[in-house]
């Protein structure tokens, strides 16, 4: 078990190192003739105007928020699903009621019109 996590840790380092080393090598091998024109921010044929890293529309934020709620609730469901085989019928019913609450949440959000992209 511990060996498996050791493997995952090493794999993570290697997975980061492979593209990292490749990019580094390409940086060494490639030409280095940078100038201000090249480094200019891309825009469709014109100079870019104003700040880029601006505040963004609240719409994106709301979707991220709904995602957060559903994902946390789904994480609660994973242990329930993994233990499903050993559970009695009533324990399963309790889980099903939890899913019904989730569906209720989705219906509420839908009814509120939050899911409309404006």
């Amino acid at each position, binding site marked *: 078990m511990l060996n498996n996590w050791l493997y995952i840790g090493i794999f993570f380092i290697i997975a980061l190192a492979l593209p990292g080393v490749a990019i580094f090598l390409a940086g060494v091998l490639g030409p280095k003739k940078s100038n201000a024109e090249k480094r200019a921010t891309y825009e469709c044929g014109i100079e870019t105007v104003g700040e880029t890293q601006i505040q963004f529309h609240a719409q994106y934020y709301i979707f991220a928020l*709904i995602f957060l709620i559903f994902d946390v609730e789904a994480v609660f469901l994973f242990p329930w699903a993994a233990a499903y085989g050993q559970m009695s019928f009533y324990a399963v019913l309790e889980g099903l009621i939890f899913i019904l609450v989730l569906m209720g949440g989705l219906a509420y959000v839908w009814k509120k019109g939050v899911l409309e992209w404006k």
Partner: protein
Amino acid sequence: MPGFWQDPIGFIANLLHSLLIGWGLPAAVVDVILSVLGAGALAMGAMLFVIFLIWYERKLLGRIQDRLGPNRVGPFGIFQSFADMFKIFTKETITPQGADVIPYNLAPILAVAAVLLVWAVIPFGVNIMGANLSVGVLFVLAAGGFGELAIMLAGWGSNNKYALMGGFRAVAMLVSYEVPMVLALLVPVLLANSLNLNDIVRAQTVPFLFTAPVAAIVFFITQVAESGRAPFDVVEAESEIVAGFNVEYSGLKFGMFYVAEFLHAFTVSMLFATLFLSGWRGPGAEQIPLLGVLYLMIKTFLVYFIIILFRGSLPRFRIDQMLNLNWKVLTPLALVAFFMTALFDKSLAQLGVVGNDLGAQVIRTLVLLVVNGIILWLGERWLSQATRPVRRDVRLTKPAVVDRYPGAK
């Protein structure tokens, strides 16, 4: 010591283990060295495999579009990708003005690493797998989250408006598609009673495609969306936001995003084959694990072929259509499918239809298949009504004035 054909990885590991111990190294160090070798071989194999995948996909797309595809370098153009790879190594990488250097440089590395990480837990054969994690499914989800993070970092770090828009879209879209994906993933976990990917493969006497088709369909669609390819490529929509999150990347940094995209598409095919098409299972795969690798690859390429067909034949969704599809079709479908599967499977167990004998398996599969069919049929009927967007009145003679900022003056 088992023979090579029964357990190739174990055989080589044992051989190296006894060799290194023989050199007088402590056992802990030997474990680390073997892990490094195994992980390195798997990761390198995956990266080299991409070169072949790119050729395969370009060739197929060419055929779909009535072209030949790459056909100059080597037989059938198979070395085209090698030529491209060597060329991209010699290209200049330009860091744009005002870029946030850390996220900008971290993003391509994370994008590749996130996809590679999934390979660490996929069972390629009965005993050919990187790490036999007891929480494999959760690990896959976590690794998927990394990929989205990479796209957001790229969008934010590039100091470019198109890239930023791509990043915004990634927040709304990729993150949204994770919800039905997680819910669909719960169904195989529920049917196999385990989060371990190898246990899930073992539990598929009948592939879960037949016992949970709705979950399979939802999972497939969300995975295509997560890998950010057509028809779900709004984060890099060429005709709308140029190239989206990777517009400011050049040289091998762009190349890494390219590699990540192709590898992601293949990895999700492999995940689908593992979770719903019974992975490495097939005649003789228990005795000869390498045969299991072959079966998994055949199934994976089947799914990958469908993903390429998607890309070659479907037009891109608008972002509002994508979000509608996600929240109003896939999420309710996944929730209902999960609910019904849990209810009916337990009811069958209560009635005594349980165990691995043929009769029980047939009855269970038929009941779940019928339930899923009814869900799909009713869902299609109801959702096509409920999610139809309200048509705007197009007979206006002059454009309607919308007061965007009421009370501004």
